[in-house]
């Protein structure tokens, strides 16, 4: 529907544009036609023919007056009228663009005839003397016979002009009607376009409000789910702690001696209750950090101490995993401002991951030192590595490279996402380098305490630090 809608809209826009162009062209040609009509008036065929007839009339009139006794005139005046008639005849002969008006009509023969008469009678006119009534009468007779044909010719020219005008007016009428229809069409198209835009905007409004509703619902659902998980985990923690405690007591022999078989079973149960408790803690931590409820207590601490503590806490797993931890910690203190509990959690996460994914018999190499304005922790393993396809998802929650790995090596898949959250709360950044079957190195960089105020500026300036 949308594509067809769009095409329709563009068609209308195009129609409006084309119509506008046509109206523009139409108006220009209308104007030129109007100009032509008005310019016809002075130099047009009617005007030319009329002038010739008029001057013929004045000439013959001057001849008549020459012979009359009431209002006599001079021979010079007769010659003057003759000259003017001569000039008007020449104009009529030239006509427009070399063609006399109504040249094809029978009446047009008067031009040639009058021309011949002018030439024929010229000597008489030139030699006319005052009082020579006889010659004047001859001249009058010679020219009076052209009065009617000249009038006929004027009428013929008028007819021709009328036909031309009619054509022009018909064209004009057609053009103006076309203009009206085009304008109407444009009006309708514009209206249609306005309606289309209105409908479309209403449609988009509805869509976006529906989308907003959906988003709101999704958010509510997600929050409800989070709360549910949080509540369940919390409820699970108490019985798990109780089970773990009981199993601990049994294993410690405080509840009486056990046979070797039973002891092995209790060990297994105790280990698994440990894992269960850790899992529940992870889930709770994660939900808290998602909700921004994870509590942090920032204090000046030594990052090297933090790493040492985390390494010591994980020594217990060395034997079980068959992997050794080797620490190379800076002798000098690496002062930072941070929450040592969360930072130990972060380093422990990295260590347990490194040990889990290491090949047996290899060691995990941990360093902590100053690098520029940062304290840097590196955890390097010689293990399975992270496949390229999975690299982008390392810090996403609930993910491990291989679904089956989850079973084999344990863990919730929340560890890395919690680690990232903790690093970012400390204005630090975390990244890794990895090669499949060679190993992985995770790096955490945290800003040093003594240069924190300027470093704060740097943090804001360098997107790497802010977005890592």
């Amino acid at each position, binding site marked *: 529907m949308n594509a067809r809608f769009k095409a329709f809209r563009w068609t209308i826009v195009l129609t409006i544009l084309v119509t506008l162009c046509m109206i523009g062209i139409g108006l220009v040609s209308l104007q030129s036609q109007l100009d032509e009509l008005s310019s016809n008036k002075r130099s047009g065929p009617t005007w030319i023919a009329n002038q010739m007839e008029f001057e013929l009339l004045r000439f013959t009139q001057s001849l008549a007056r020459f012979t009359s006794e009431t209002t006599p005139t001079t021979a010079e005046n007769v010659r*003057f009228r003759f*000259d003017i008639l*001569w*000039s008007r005849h020449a104009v009529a002969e030239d006509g427009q663009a070399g063609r006399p008006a109504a040249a094809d009509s029978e009446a047009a023969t008067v031009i040639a005839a009058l021309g011949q008469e002018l030439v024929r009678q010229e000597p008489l006119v030139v030699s006319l003397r005052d009082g020579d009534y006889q010659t004047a009468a001859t001249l009058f007779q010679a020219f009076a016979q052209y009065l009617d044909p000249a009038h006929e010719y004027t009428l013929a020219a008028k007819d021709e002009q009328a036909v031309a005008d009619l054509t022009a007016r018909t064209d004009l009428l057609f053009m103006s009607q076309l203009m009206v229809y085009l304008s109407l069409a444009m009006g309708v198209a514009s209206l249609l376009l306005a309606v289309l835009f209105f409908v479309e905007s209403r449609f988009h409004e509805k869509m976006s409000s529906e989308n907003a509703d959906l988003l709101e619902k999704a958010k509510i659902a997600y929050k409800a789910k989070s709360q549910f998980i949080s509540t369940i985990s919390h409820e699970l923690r108490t019985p798990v702690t109780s089970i773990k405690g009981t199993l601990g007591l049994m294993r410690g022999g405080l509840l009486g001696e056990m046979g070797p078989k039973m002891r092995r079973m209790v060990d297994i149960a105790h280990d698994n209750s440990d894992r269960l408790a850790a899992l529940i803690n992870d889930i709770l931590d994660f939900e808290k950090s998602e909700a921004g409820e994870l509590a942090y207590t920032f204090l000046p601490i030594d990052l090297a101490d933090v790493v040492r503590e985390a390494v010591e806490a994980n020594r217990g797993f060395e034997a079980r995993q068959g992997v050794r931890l080797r620490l190379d910690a800076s002798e000098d203190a690496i002062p930072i401002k941070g929450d040592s509990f969360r930072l130990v959690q972060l380093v422990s996460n990295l260590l347990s991951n490194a040990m889990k994914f290491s090949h047996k018999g290899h060691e995990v190499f941990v360093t902590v030192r100053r690098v520029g304005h940062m304290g840097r922790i590196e955890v390097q393993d010689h293990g399975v590595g992270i496949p390229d396809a999975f690299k982008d998802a390392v810090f996403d929650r609930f993910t491990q490279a291989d679904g089956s790995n989850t079973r084999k090596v344990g863990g919730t898949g929340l560890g890395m996402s919690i680690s990232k959250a903790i690093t970012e709360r400390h204005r630090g950044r975390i990244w890794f380098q990895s090669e499949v079957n060679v190993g992985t190195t995770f790096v955490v960089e945290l800003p040093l305490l003594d240069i924190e105020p300027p470093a704060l500026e740097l943090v804001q300036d360098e997107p790497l630090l802010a977005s890592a």
Partner: protein
Amino acid sequence: MKHFIAAAAIGLFAAQVASAQAILTVVQNDAAGNQVSKEYTAEQLLDMDPVEITTMNDYLDAPHVFTGPLLRDLIDTELKATDSIEVTALNDYKTKIPAAEALKYDVIVAVLQDGERMSLRDKGPFWVIYPMSDNPELQDPGFNDRLIWQLSGVKLVPGE
């Protein structure tokens, strides 16, 4: 021979007729506001600092050289752009020329065409000429109406 004499006679008389009628009447108000009328012969007009213009127009087949005084020089008082000049032809045809055009362009009252007097039988004795060839904007057909031939009178019509 007979023809030759006749032709010579015609030429002689024609020239006489032309010179007899070749008078331009200029009507305008003097400083006191009274209407004054002056008559100029072709010779007098040619004495008035004539200008030469070579131009073409719709009534000519090829460019010609026209000589005559500037139309604006015929008016003694200072010509204003809002004034107009009423021009009259021998056949009593009248039209108005906006003074602004006479001020902006070298509009002349041509007395000579290619150094010769113009005959009454062809656009003479005087013809209003616009410098159309030098000013393409004047080549609009609307300006043809201003090219009054057989000019006999010029009258200043003061503007508002």
